[in-house]
């Protein structure tokens, strides 16, 4: 174990240990719990920053522990892993702040924050996993640690949502397990490598490899909410807003999308995936998901459900970018991992603020709410513009690279999908903005603001910050350590010869 490898454990421990301790903390000891949470989140961010610096300068962090004969528990911090880790850690800090504000005075907060921390630990583990077994371990851990958050409210609806969540994700996990084992029995290794590790098998086991590919994709596709595996996501909306943020932006959906990236690039390799004829169907599936999700979103009146279907649609941009299998499209897909996270978390924070402050859950109730909560709706508007793909917000950058990459790879139809999706995005976001800003409030108006603020600081600042970050990621896309720059750094490693 190299000395630098301890940092990998430390990154995991920075959320795992506070989480475990928080379970044991009495409900009323708010200050201690908050302190621990923030200490963990900040120290994780610092550790991640250190690793970013190191990886950018050519360092490799790797931790290897013997688990099974011939199979190790491997954590490795490469550029791709760090992309997801950074996203998760940064958004965890913000989500934690938000959750502290959101859940103020509500019961069972120790349980909530404990699982919240476990959940982030698992998603960081998913990101850092150096082989498919380690990935699988954290992937399932993520499922298990999210479940208590989904059922947190303890209502019958929450219980059903939890059952449905597990039914989908555990079935996905079983498929992933089957694929992983099958692959292991053929290849004898599960180590992620930059250009995939299954080349040698293609002559003898072509059919098996194709089947395994779809097993693995189905496994991660459940979390990535690929149609038709997306059913759990809208149901899970019964959970509190911070949990939705976590599901959609920080951990779960992202882990699925990230899994697709890992499988296509580092298990199979893009060339092999194209050669096996699996890339195009995956792209098509992603395209279908994009359009289907947008269409369904159009017809939702429940704000969170509309956002959920929007996620179904948006996350598949990542899969699409990956499946197109060209370097530029890859950049578009990967950078959308970050951009979508920033924008979608903003939207959920805002939806949570509306629900928490003025008890608005439906779009039809949103008339004139922009006047009551200008900052919140401002952030919402910015993020919605990003989702539609208007420049200069981050979403534009993703779509631009996706379209460019598709054309470069000779897949012009993708541009049509992108255009159609953008139109649909506009069609389901613009009416919301119209209602919020340009219509008069119905009836008696909204509950008055307390103390001159539209809502609590802890509820207000996180969406504002993430909205600013979405804008920044678009405006400053070309400064060092911006998401785009980092993704190009990754692409240089995945595609030899690209610069």
């Amino acid at each position, binding site marked *: 174990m190299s000395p630098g490898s301890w940092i990998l454990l430390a990154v995991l421990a920075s959320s795992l240990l506070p989480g475990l301790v928080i*379970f044991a903390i009495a409900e009323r000891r708010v200050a201690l719990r908050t302190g621990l949470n923030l200490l963990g989140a900040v120290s994780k961010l610092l550790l991640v920053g250190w690793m970013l610096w190191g990886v950018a300068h050519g360092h490799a962090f790797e931790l290897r*522990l*013997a*688990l*099974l*004969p011939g199979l190790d528990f491997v954590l490795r911090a490469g550029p791709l892993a760090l992309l997801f880790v950074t996203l998760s850690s940064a958004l965890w800090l913000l989500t934690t702040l938000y959750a502290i504000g959101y859940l103020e005075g509500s*019961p*069972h907060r120790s*349980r909530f924050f404990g699982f919240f921390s476990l959940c982030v630990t698992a998603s960081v583990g998913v990101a850092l996993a150096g082989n498919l077994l380690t990935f*699988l*371990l954290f992937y*399932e*851990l993520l*499922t*298990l640690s999210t*479940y*208590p958050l989904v*059922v*947190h409210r*303890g*209502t*019958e609806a*929450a*219980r059903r949502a*939890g*059952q449905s969540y*597990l*039914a989908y994700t*555990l*079935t996905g*996990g*079983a498929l992933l*397990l*089957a694929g992983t*084992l*099958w692959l*292991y*029995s053929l290849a004898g290794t599960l180590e992620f490598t930059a250009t995939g590790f299954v080349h040698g098998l293609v002559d003898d086991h072509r059919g098996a490899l194709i089947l395994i590919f779809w097993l693995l994709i189905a496994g991660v596709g459940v979390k990535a909410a690929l149609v038709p595996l997306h059913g759990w996501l809208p149901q899970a909306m019964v959970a509190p807003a911070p949990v939705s943020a976590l599901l959609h932006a920080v951990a779960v959906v992202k882990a699925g999308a990230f899994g697709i990236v890992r499988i296509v690039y580092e298990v199979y390799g893009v060339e092999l995936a194209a050669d096996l004829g699996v890339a195009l169907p995956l792209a098509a599936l992603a395209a279908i998901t994009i359009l289907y999700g947008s269409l369904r979103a159009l017809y939702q009146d429940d704000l969170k459900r509309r956002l959920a279907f929007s996620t179904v649609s948006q996350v598949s941009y990542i899969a699409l970018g990956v499946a197109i299998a060209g370097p530029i499209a890859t950049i578009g897909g990967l950078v959308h991992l970050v951009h979508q996270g920033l924008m979608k978390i903003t939207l959920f924070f805002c939806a949570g603020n509306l629900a928490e402050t003025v008890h608005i859950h439906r779009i039809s109730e949103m008339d004139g709410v922009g006047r009551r909560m200008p900052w919140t709706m401002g952030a919402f508007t910015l993020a919605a513009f990003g989702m539609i793909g208007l420049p200069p917000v981050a979403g534009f950058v993703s779509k631009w690279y996706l379209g460019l990459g598709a054309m470069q790879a000779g897949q012009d139809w993708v541009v049509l999908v992108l255009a159609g999706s953008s139109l649909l995005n506009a069609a389901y976001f613009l009416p919301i903005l119209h209602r919020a800003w340009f219509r008069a409030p119905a009836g008696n108006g909204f509950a008055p603001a307390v103390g001159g603020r539209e809502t609590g600081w802890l509820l207000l600042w996180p969406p504002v910050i993430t909205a600013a970050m979405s804008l920044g990621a678009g405006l400053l896309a070309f400064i060092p350590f911006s998401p785009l720059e980092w993704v190009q750094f990754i692409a240089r490693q995945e595609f030899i010869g690209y610069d």
Partner: protein
Amino acid sequence: MSPVLLPDLPWEALLILLPLTGAAAGALWPPAARAIGLLTTAGGLLLLAGLGTAVADAQTLRHAVGGWGAPLGIELRADALSLVFLTATALVGLGVAVYADSYFERSQARGFWPLWLFLLGALNALFLSADLFNLYVTLELMGLAAVALTAFSGGRAALSGAMRYLLATLLGSLVYLLGVALLYHATGTLDFSLLTQRLEAGPAARTALGLMGAGLALKTALFPFHFWLPPAHSSAPAPVSALLSALVVKASFYILVRLWLELFAPLSGLEGAGTGEVLGWLGMAAILWGSWQALRQPRVKLLVAYSTVAQIGYLFLAFPLLTAAGLPDPAAWRAVLWLVLAHALAKAAMFLAAGNLLRFGGHDRIPDLDCVAQRLPLTVAAFALAGISIAGLPPTGGFIGKWLLLEAALLQGRWDLVAVMLLGGLLAAGYVFKVVGHFFTPAAAGHAARPVPAAMEWTALTLAILALLLGLAPAWLLPWLDLAVGPGPAEAVP
């Protein structure tokens, strides 16, 4: 191991004598039964450590009881395989003993301790015996102790379950004994190693295999012989249910494994493969049927009991897996031993947790579990963690066991086994989370809650955490299992 630390004691003999003597002493002087019970159970763990170091040194320890040696006398044998089962016994036993100390009221406890020590002594004796008839006696001692413990609470369901269990266990032992009779007269010995040398394929060996296999399968509650298990295991007092599910069914399975690995599978011309195939099919049926039934149960303890039926099925999946040479596949057996350990710890934890729920709410109806997640957090954690291990989800011992078994099945191209295991895992997750989901929801009517002593919550959680830790330590533990199933017995036959 260094003789300085541990003197060279007859660990096997002590492991058997200590609990049995404790039982007799507890029967003689009931007021001291509790102290004797706790001390001897804990002492067993120390003795096991001694035995472990000795086995690590010598691989196989033999102890000729009475100094005669086989075939005239009885021999005790301790090797890695027996150690696996003894370890499960000692760990679960200690946990359950601590739990039972709080569970039973004072007057009841006096009756409990001698019976428990009888069970412990019988289990230890069984895992250490190398003599077929001696195994019969230990089986009976164990069976009667288990029946007595099942009926201990005296309720109608418990009595009925115990009666059914008694008849099943007696039938199983007698059928086993009939097989022993055939083997004895075919070979003139009862000792395992001598039998390995002398037994030849033929109608007697085949019939003996069938009889012993059937008798032990009945005692192990392999589908379709499982009919007695759910009523007995669900109606017994919680600590007893834990012992029954975690240890007692494993004891007859242990004998079956010994017989299979050392006697019958290596016997060429016995069509061992056919028998293995049948056992494998029954195992698969057990997984699907048991899981499905568990999913349908309205009460926690019944659900957990049916889960045992299903989990026993996994243990039988190794029988059809053979190496290229037609011998038992060590990789598969290693996985099964792992599952034995994982299941023992997790299932004990689940039953203890179920006992806490039962005490807390006065019932264990699943839809009426009233917000226990916040009132009994440790119990809920224990149940959930153990359940995750039972369902074979990472990062638990159950996952590692399932991974190893899946790997072995895949390498042999047994997709049927793989599919059943995956499906069984999903069903298991289904029934575990069916319960866990209700931990968070409030029930329709309020119940008068009864406090649960901390020791009862912590023992359940400790066992569950052990099941979890098992998932983190495979690299450390696997060599032991390799020693237990490795090339040893199968290839020792000339």
